[in-house]
């Protein structure tokens, strides 16, 4: 799956030996890092502004995940000899972050934290499901 992209990343130091190319690549990488940090700020802003836990998980962890991935990718373009470890770090962040946000959302729903203070929340099918099948809650 991701193996093809990863094996391509190993070839970066071999392909790019010209200095001029390196300069252009470094500037592109710096801009990618900048975009990633902007995403991080937006995610943290969403963390402050959103009304309840689930929306905070949505905006906070996801946007900061993309921000981290983009900034590490930019650094991998700036310093090609580090790209191996940076890409393993990107894979690590991409694999662990959805798991932790899913576990947090599950725990928050289990604690019966109210979904939103205003009347914005439309539906909650999971509570309906639990009300219809009470034995599923026990496990």
């Amino acid at each position, binding site marked *: 799956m991701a193996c093809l992209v990863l094996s391509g990343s190993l070839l970066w130091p071999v392909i790019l030996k010209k200095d001029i190319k390196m300069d252009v690549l470094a500037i592109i990488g*710096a801009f990618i890092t900048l975009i990633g*940090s902007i995403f991080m700020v937006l995610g943290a802003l969403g963390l402050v502004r959103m009304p309840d836990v689930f929306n905070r998980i949505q905006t906070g962890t996801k946007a900061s995940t993309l921000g981290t991935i983009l900034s590490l990718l930019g650094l991998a373009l700036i310093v090609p000899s580090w790209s191996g*470890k940076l890409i393993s770090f990107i894979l690590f962040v991409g694999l662990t972050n959805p798991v932790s946000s899913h576990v947090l959302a599950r725990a928050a729903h289990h604690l019966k934290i109210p979904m939103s203070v205003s009347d914005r929340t439309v539906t909650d099918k999971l509570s309906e499901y639990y009300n219809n099948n009470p034995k599923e809650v026990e496990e």
Partner: protein
Amino acid sequence: MVNTILTIAGALMLVAILLSLYRFLKGPTTADKVVAFDVMTVSSSAILVLLGYYSNRYIYLDVALVYGLLSFIGVIIVARYIEKGY
């Protein structure tokens, strides 16, 4: 050129950490605080990688990797604790 842009990016990451620190201190429930903790650690591991670029140390990447691993395990443990109580 590159260093200037990277400095701006690092400053923006610090702003992100400060914003989530607000939620960490204020957050009404435990889950809010854990979410804020998650965002803070992910952003600060990116800052650690940037610091590694500035001081030109390859070993800082390992520090960032272990830091991210510990934050993941911490979040899982706290979530499991508040869900099941053990």
